Protein backbone atom coordinates (compact mmCIF):
# COMPACT_ATOMS: atom_id res chain seq x y z
CA UNK A 1 0.00 0.00 0.00
CA UNK A 2 1.34 3.41 -0.95
CA UNK A 3 2.16 5.79 1.84
CA UNK A 4 0.75 8.82 0.04
CA UNK A 5 -1.17 11.42 2.04
CA UNK A 6 -2.96 14.27 0.33
CA UNK A 7 -4.03 17.47 2.05
CA UNK A 8 -5.77 20.80 1.55
CA UNK A 9 -3.50 22.87 3.79
CA UNK A 10 -2.41 25.28 1.03
CA UNK A 11 -6.02 26.00 0.00
CA UNK A 12 -7.23 26.42 3.57
CA UNK A 13 -4.31 28.70 4.38
CA UNK A 14 -4.96 30.84 1.29
CA UNK A 15 -8.69 31.04 2.10
CA UNK A 16 -7.89 32.34 5.56
CA UNK A 17 -5.25 34.71 4.24
CA UNK A 18 -2.55 33.18 6.43
CA UNK A 19 1.14 33.18 5.60
CA UNK A 20 3.15 30.02 6.16
CA UNK A 21 4.79 31.72 9.11
CA UNK A 22 1.35 32.47 10.68
CA UNK A 23 0.28 28.86 10.34
CA UNK A 24 3.64 27.58 11.59
CA UNK A 25 3.42 29.82 14.67
CA UNK A 26 -0.18 28.79 15.31
CA UNK A 27 0.54 25.06 15.41
CA UNK A 28 4.09 25.28 16.77
CA UNK A 29 6.13 23.99 13.84
CA UNK A 30 8.91 25.34 11.67
CA UNK A 31 7.87 27.44 8.66
CA UNK A 32 9.75 25.04 6.37
CA UNK A 33 7.63 22.17 7.62
CA UNK A 34 4.48 23.94 6.41
CA UNK A 35 6.02 23.97 2.92
CA UNK A 36 6.89 20.26 3.17
CA UNK A 37 3.32 19.48 4.30
CA UNK A 38 1.76 21.50 1.49
CA UNK A 39 3.90 19.84 -1.15
CA UNK A 40 3.11 16.39 0.29
CA UNK A 41 6.79 15.78 1.08
CA UNK A 42 6.02 15.07 4.72
CA UNK A 43 3.18 13.19 6.41
CA UNK A 44 2.38 14.75 9.80
CA UNK A 45 1.99 12.91 13.07
CA UNK A 46 -1.51 12.40 14.42
CA UNK A 47 -0.88 15.15 16.96
CA UNK A 48 0.06 17.67 14.28
CA UNK A 49 -2.86 16.61 12.07
CA UNK A 50 -5.23 17.16 15.00
CA UNK A 51 -3.62 20.51 15.77
CA UNK A 52 -4.14 21.60 12.16
CA UNK A 53 -7.70 20.33 12.21
CA UNK A 54 -8.38 22.30 15.38
CA UNK A 55 -6.74 25.40 13.95
CA UNK A 56 -8.81 25.32 10.77
CA UNK A 57 -11.96 24.25 12.64
CA UNK A 58 -12.50 21.32 10.31
CA UNK A 59 -12.55 17.55 10.77
CA UNK A 60 -9.24 15.80 9.99
CA UNK A 61 -10.76 14.01 7.00
CA UNK A 62 -11.63 17.37 5.42
CA UNK A 63 -7.93 18.31 5.46
CA UNK A 64 -6.15 14.97 4.91
CA UNK A 65 -6.96 12.02 2.72
CA UNK A 66 -5.29 8.84 1.45
CA UNK A 67 -6.91 9.51 -1.96
CA UNK A 68 -6.39 12.65 -4.09
CA UNK A 69 -8.71 15.35 -2.77
CA UNK A 70 -11.31 16.95 -5.00
CA UNK A 71 -11.20 20.74 -5.31
CA UNK A 72 -13.18 22.34 -2.48
CA UNK A 73 -15.58 24.05 -4.90
CA UNK A 74 -16.37 20.72 -6.53
CA UNK A 75 -16.73 19.05 -3.15
CA UNK A 76 -19.20 21.75 -2.14
CA UNK A 77 -21.20 22.24 -5.32
CA UNK A 78 -20.48 19.14 -7.40
CA UNK A 79 -22.95 17.04 -5.42
CA UNK A 80 -25.65 19.73 -5.76
CA UNK A 81 -25.45 19.49 -9.54
CA UNK A 82 -25.63 15.69 -9.45
CA UNK A 83 -28.56 15.82 -7.03
CA UNK A 84 -30.37 18.40 -9.18
CA UNK A 85 -29.86 16.22 -12.23
CA UNK A 86 -31.21 13.18 -10.37
CA UNK A 87 -34.21 15.16 -9.08
CA UNK A 88 -35.04 16.40 -12.60
CA UNK A 89 -34.85 12.89 -13.98
CA UNK A 90 -37.12 11.49 -11.29
CA UNK A 91 -39.66 14.32 -11.85
CA UNK A 92 -39.93 13.35 -15.51
Amino acid sequence: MENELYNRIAVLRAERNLSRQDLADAVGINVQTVGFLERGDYSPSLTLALDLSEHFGLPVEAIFSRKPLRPLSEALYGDHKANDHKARRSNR
Partner: protein
Amino acid sequence: MTATGYKVFGIAMQRRGARRKLVVVTYGALVAFCTTTFVLHVAYGLGALLPYSWSIYASMAVSMFVFGGNGRWGLVKSFANKPPQPDAPMVEIVKLNLAPRTLVSQNTSMWKNDERELSRRDQAHYHAYQAVAVAVLVILLLAFWSIKPPLWVSAEILREAVFIVALLTSVLALTLPAAIILWTEPDIDTPEEQT
Protein backbone atom coordinates in the same frame (compact mmCIF):
# COMPACT_ATOMS: atom_id res chain seq x y z
CA MET B 1 17.19 22.90 9.39
CA THR B 2 19.43 25.84 10.13
CA ALA B 3 19.73 27.84 13.26
CA THR B 4 21.91 30.67 12.05
CA GLY B 5 20.55 31.65 8.65
CA TYR B 6 21.46 29.68 5.60
CA LYS B 7 24.91 30.99 4.85
CA VAL B 8 28.39 29.52 5.12
CA PHE B 9 31.26 31.87 4.34
CA GLY B 10 28.65 34.21 2.79
CA ILE B 11 27.36 31.57 0.35
CA ALA B 12 23.60 30.83 0.48
CA MET B 13 22.80 27.22 1.29
CA GLN B 14 19.05 27.05 0.71
CA ARG B 15 19.52 24.86 -2.35
CA ARG B 16 20.36 21.22 -1.81
CA GLY B 17 22.89 21.34 -4.66
CA ALA B 18 24.88 24.04 -2.86
CA ARG B 19 24.80 22.04 0.37
CA ARG B 20 25.97 18.89 -1.37
CA LYS B 21 28.89 20.80 -2.88
CA LEU B 22 29.74 22.09 0.59
CA VAL B 23 29.69 18.54 2.03
CA VAL B 24 31.91 17.21 -0.79
CA VAL B 25 34.38 20.12 -0.53
CA THR B 26 34.52 19.88 3.27
CA TYR B 27 35.10 16.12 3.30
CA GLY B 28 37.71 16.57 0.54
CA ALA B 29 39.50 19.14 2.68
CA LEU B 30 39.25 16.89 5.76
CA VAL B 31 40.66 13.88 3.90
CA ALA B 32 43.49 16.07 2.50
CA PHE B 33 44.21 17.34 6.02
CA CYS B 34 44.19 13.82 7.53
CA THR B 35 46.43 12.55 4.71
CA THR B 36 48.88 15.41 5.22
CA THR B 37 49.12 14.81 8.96
CA PHE B 38 49.49 11.08 8.37
CA VAL B 39 52.26 11.62 5.81
CA LEU B 40 54.01 13.97 8.26
CA HIS B 41 53.66 11.30 10.94
CA VAL B 42 55.21 8.63 8.67
CA ALA B 43 57.89 10.84 7.09
CA TYR B 44 59.08 12.72 10.15
CA GLY B 45 57.99 10.35 12.92
CA LEU B 46 55.90 12.96 14.69
CA GLY B 47 54.19 10.31 16.79
CA ALA B 48 50.82 8.74 16.15
CA LEU B 49 48.93 10.94 18.58
CA LEU B 50 49.74 14.20 16.83
CA PRO B 51 48.06 13.61 13.44
CA TYR B 52 45.21 11.90 15.24
CA SER B 53 44.54 14.86 17.52
CA TRP B 54 44.93 17.40 14.67
CA SER B 55 42.39 15.48 12.59
CA ILE B 56 39.98 15.29 15.52
CA TYR B 57 40.32 19.04 16.13
CA ALA B 58 39.69 19.71 12.42
CA SER B 59 36.59 17.48 12.46
CA MET B 60 35.32 19.17 15.61
CA ALA B 61 35.80 22.58 13.98
CA VAL B 62 33.91 21.45 10.87
CA SER B 63 31.15 19.96 12.99
CA MET B 64 30.92 23.05 15.18
CA PHE B 65 31.27 25.89 12.68
CA VAL B 66 30.26 24.52 9.26
CA PHE B 67 27.92 21.54 9.44
CA GLY B 68 26.37 22.38 12.81
CA GLY B 69 24.25 20.20 15.07
CA ASN B 70 26.39 20.86 18.13
CA GLY B 71 25.61 24.33 19.31
CA ARG B 72 24.91 27.81 18.10
CA TRP B 73 26.98 27.81 14.91
CA GLY B 74 26.79 25.84 11.69
CA LEU B 75 23.98 25.04 9.31
CA VAL B 76 22.12 22.29 11.17
CA LYS B 77 20.09 23.19 14.23
CA SER B 78 21.39 21.89 17.55
CA PHE B 79 20.69 18.15 17.88
CA ALA B 80 20.13 18.66 21.59
CA ASN B 81 16.82 20.37 20.72
CA LYS B 82 17.37 23.16 23.20
CA PRO B 83 19.05 26.56 22.96
CA PRO B 84 22.76 26.79 23.70
CA GLN B 85 23.79 28.33 26.99
CA PRO B 86 23.52 32.10 26.55
CA ASP B 87 26.59 34.24 27.03
CA ALA B 88 27.07 35.42 30.58
CA PRO B 89 26.66 39.17 30.99
CA MET B 90 29.94 41.05 31.39
CA VAL B 91 29.51 42.42 34.87
CA GLU B 92 31.84 43.00 37.77
CA ILE B 93 31.41 39.53 39.25
CA VAL B 94 32.98 37.99 36.13
CA LYS B 95 36.22 39.62 37.19
CA LEU B 96 35.88 37.85 40.54
CA ASN B 97 35.67 34.49 38.73
CA LEU B 98 32.23 33.78 40.10
CA ALA B 99 31.07 32.54 36.67
CA PRO B 100 27.55 33.93 36.68
CA ARG B 101 24.81 32.36 34.60
CA THR B 102 22.49 34.63 32.73
CA LEU B 103 19.00 34.87 34.13
CA VAL B 104 17.53 36.07 30.86
CA SER B 105 15.70 33.21 29.22
CA GLN B 106 16.39 32.78 25.53
CA ASN B 107 13.85 32.52 22.75
CA THR B 108 13.72 28.74 22.34
CA SER B 109 11.49 28.66 19.25
CA MET B 110 14.32 29.19 16.78
CA TRP B 111 16.37 26.43 18.40
CA LYS B 112 13.58 23.92 18.83
CA ASN B 113 13.33 21.17 16.23
CA ASP B 114 9.77 20.37 15.24
CA GLU B 115 8.58 16.79 14.68
CA ARG B 116 9.80 16.65 11.06
CA GLU B 117 13.25 17.91 11.99
CA LEU B 118 13.47 15.50 14.92
CA SER B 119 12.58 12.60 12.64
CA ARG B 120 15.23 13.73 10.11
CA ARG B 121 17.77 14.02 12.93
CA ASP B 122 17.01 10.51 14.18
CA GLN B 123 17.15 9.05 10.67
CA ALA B 124 20.49 10.77 10.01
CA HIS B 125 21.95 9.37 13.24
CA TYR B 126 20.67 5.90 12.39
CA HIS B 127 22.36 5.97 8.97
CA ALA B 128 25.56 7.46 10.42
CA TYR B 129 25.57 4.76 13.11
CA GLN B 130 25.45 2.03 10.47
CA ALA B 131 28.46 3.49 8.64
CA VAL B 132 30.42 3.90 11.88
CA ALA B 133 29.49 0.36 13.02
CA VAL B 134 30.89 -1.10 9.78
CA ALA B 135 34.06 0.96 10.21
CA VAL B 136 34.46 -0.31 13.80
CA LEU B 137 34.15 -3.90 12.57
CA VAL B 138 36.84 -3.19 9.96
CA ILE B 139 39.11 -1.81 12.71
CA LEU B 140 38.50 -4.96 14.78
CA LEU B 141 39.31 -7.19 11.81
CA LEU B 142 42.50 -5.26 10.99
CA ALA B 143 43.56 -5.28 14.65
CA PHE B 144 43.02 -9.03 14.82
CA TRP B 145 45.04 -9.53 11.64
CA SER B 146 47.82 -7.32 12.95
CA ILE B 147 48.22 -9.73 15.89
CA LYS B 148 48.28 -12.76 13.60
CA PRO B 149 49.14 -11.31 10.17
CA PRO B 150 48.29 -13.33 7.07
CA LEU B 151 51.12 -14.23 4.69
CA TRP B 152 50.32 -11.58 2.07
CA VAL B 153 50.65 -8.53 4.32
CA SER B 154 53.00 -7.43 7.07
CA ALA B 155 51.97 -6.63 10.65
CA GLU B 156 53.47 -3.15 10.26
CA ILE B 157 51.15 -2.25 7.36
CA LEU B 158 48.16 -3.63 9.25
CA ARG B 159 48.98 -1.53 12.32
CA GLU B 160 49.13 1.59 10.13
CA ALA B 161 45.85 0.53 8.48
CA VAL B 162 44.20 0.22 11.90
CA PHE B 163 45.37 3.74 12.67
CA ILE B 164 44.11 5.18 9.37
CA VAL B 165 40.69 3.51 9.60
CA ALA B 166 40.35 4.59 13.24
CA LEU B 167 41.20 8.14 12.20
CA LEU B 168 38.60 8.18 9.42
CA THR B 169 36.00 6.54 11.70
CA SER B 170 36.51 9.29 14.28
CA VAL B 171 36.09 11.94 11.58
CA LEU B 172 32.88 10.27 10.39
CA ALA B 173 31.52 9.82 13.91
CA LEU B 174 31.91 13.55 14.55
CA THR B 175 30.60 14.89 11.26
CA LEU B 176 28.41 12.35 9.48
CA PRO B 177 24.95 12.93 11.06
CA ALA B 178 24.95 16.64 10.18
CA ALA B 179 26.44 15.90 6.74
CA ILE B 180 23.61 13.42 6.03
CA ILE B 181 21.03 16.06 6.98
CA LEU B 182 22.71 18.63 4.73
CA TRP B 183 22.88 16.10 1.91
CA THR B 184 19.29 14.87 2.10
CA GLU B 185 17.25 17.91 3.16
CA PRO B 186 15.35 19.26 0.12
CA ASP B 187 15.59 22.86 -1.08
CA ILE B 188 14.54 25.40 1.52
CA ASP B 189 11.93 27.97 0.55
CA THR B 190 13.10 31.56 0.40
CA PRO B 191 10.97 34.16 2.27
CA GLU B 192 9.21 35.13 -1.04
CA GLU B 193 8.21 31.52 -1.58
CA GLN B 194 6.92 31.17 1.94
CA THR B 195 3.85 33.35 1.53
